[in-house]
């Protein structure tokens, strides 16, 4: 892949972040405030209000890990799915590799996630969770999740410009997946006959792995994570292949919209 394109990805991601920060009064503070507020709301609703799921130990920490990890996945996929359409005027004037557009979204969201994740870890420390050697596995977990995000984001980004209706469907699918990812409940507490649904959901394995490391101080189950990593790589290759073979189709599809 051309080095120029990576420079373009970083620079456009920087431009997006800078624009986003310039649009509000407190700017970059929102990147800290956003996850804090979301964590606060979920804490109020599920931690104080609906204490039904109270069987889980350290429920608040359990919940917030799920939320922050999920958010990284969902916002990246959501932003990326519209990335090629959003850059319509570039697509119509430049012969440019289209993966640049979702990659830019992923880079920007990864940066915001890094802040949110640091806030989360700070909260966990503050709430008395011990810092353990198991934390050393976090970089690997982040790589696995990033690969999954790239895979799903590239494939959706590749397809949405040609099937714009898919964009509407994606937000509903993400919502469904949110409820099926064991974010505010423990999938191990769910009935045996539904376990296959959770087994097939890559985000269940990702979220459980983070919880194993930072909450329970234990080894995550690496085998399912390896499968998630492989799935991410396959989807990524498929997405890039699609965007390359459809390269000249996008301009025409966007022209006709």
């Amino acid at each position, binding site marked *: 892949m051309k080095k120029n394109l990576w420079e373009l990805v970083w620079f456009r991601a920087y431009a997006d972040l800078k*624009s986003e920060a310039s649009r509000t009064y407190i700017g970059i503070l929102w990147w800290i405030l956003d996850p804090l507020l979301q964590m606060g709301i979920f804490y109020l609703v599920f931690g104080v209000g609906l204490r039904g799921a109270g069987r889980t130990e350290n429920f608040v920490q359990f919940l917030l890990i799920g939320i922050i990890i999920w958010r990284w996945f969902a916002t990246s996929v959501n932003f990326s799915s519209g990335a090629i359409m959003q850059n319509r005027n570039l697509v119509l*004037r430049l012969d440019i590799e289209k993966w640049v557009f979702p990659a830019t979204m992923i880079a920007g969201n990864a940066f915001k996630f890094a802040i949110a994740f640091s806030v989360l870890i700070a909260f966990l420390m503050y709430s008395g969770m011990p810092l353990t050697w198991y934390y050393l596995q976090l970089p690997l977990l982040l790589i696995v999740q990033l690969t999954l995000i790239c895979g799903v984001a590239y494939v959706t980004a590749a397809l949405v410009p040609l099937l714009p209706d898919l964009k509407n469907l994606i937000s509903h699918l993400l919502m469904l997946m949110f409820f099926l990812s064991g974010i505010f409940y423990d999938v191990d507490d769910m009935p045996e006959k539904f376990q296959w649904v959770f087994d097939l959901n890559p985000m269940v394995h990702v979220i459980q792995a983070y919880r194993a490391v930072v909450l329970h101080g234990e080894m995550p189950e690496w085998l399912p994570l390896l499968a998630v990593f492989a799935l991410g790589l396959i989807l990524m290759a498929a997405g890039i292949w699609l965007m390359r073979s459809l390269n000249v189709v996008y301009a025409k599809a966007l022209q006709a919209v």
Partner: protein
Amino acid sequence: MGALIAENVGVRYSLRKGMFARRDKWALRGVSFRVEQGDSFAVVGRNGSGKSTLLRVLSGVFAPDEGRVVNTLGAASLLTINLGFVQHLSGRENAIMAGLLQGRRKQEVLKRIEDIKKLSGLGDAFEDPIASYSSGMTGRLGFAASFYYDPAVLLIDEAFSAGDDEFKQKASALMTEKLQSGLTFVFVSHNIQQVGKLCKRGILLEGGKVAAEGDVKTITSAYQESQKQRAATQREASAQKAG
């Protein structure tokens, strides 16, 4: 020596006419020509004659649905002024963005950046967000930011001058000088005077087809002739309506 060759090129648009219905329309059909190294090639035609579509095919944005484009000259890309500009970024940052979008390495762009600043004449405003610029200032930045990167074949869509009146003259003069220095380019326009000044050969497009080709005099007079005819038919039509 290389050439940029269009062979029987056709481009079809499929227009959405309802939930599932589509209607096809040929924007270009049977277009053939050859641009040699160092050529100054004009594509003349009215609005909607397929000029912009042709540029998109030549730059590789569209693939032809019929025929083919063979390019052995090297990258053919559109002169893009203000393309991809971001309002919240400074003039300097937008100039970097423009270079990157034109396929240049950041290092190369940074080497050029002071020249760009000077050419734009923006002075200290170069460091301000372009949201604070007037349209004339943005035009100057846009011109300066894309002036230094010449592809093997430069594709120019309509007027290339930008900015306020004073700058327009400067930009036009610089561009003319550059184009006359042996750069290979395809210039799309309906400004007959500019075409006559800059180009040696070209084609006239009408309704997506080549209506005339040859040296620049032939096609500009053919264009003027067709404009006259069109005006005459329109007069007749309105006379009939009135009568």
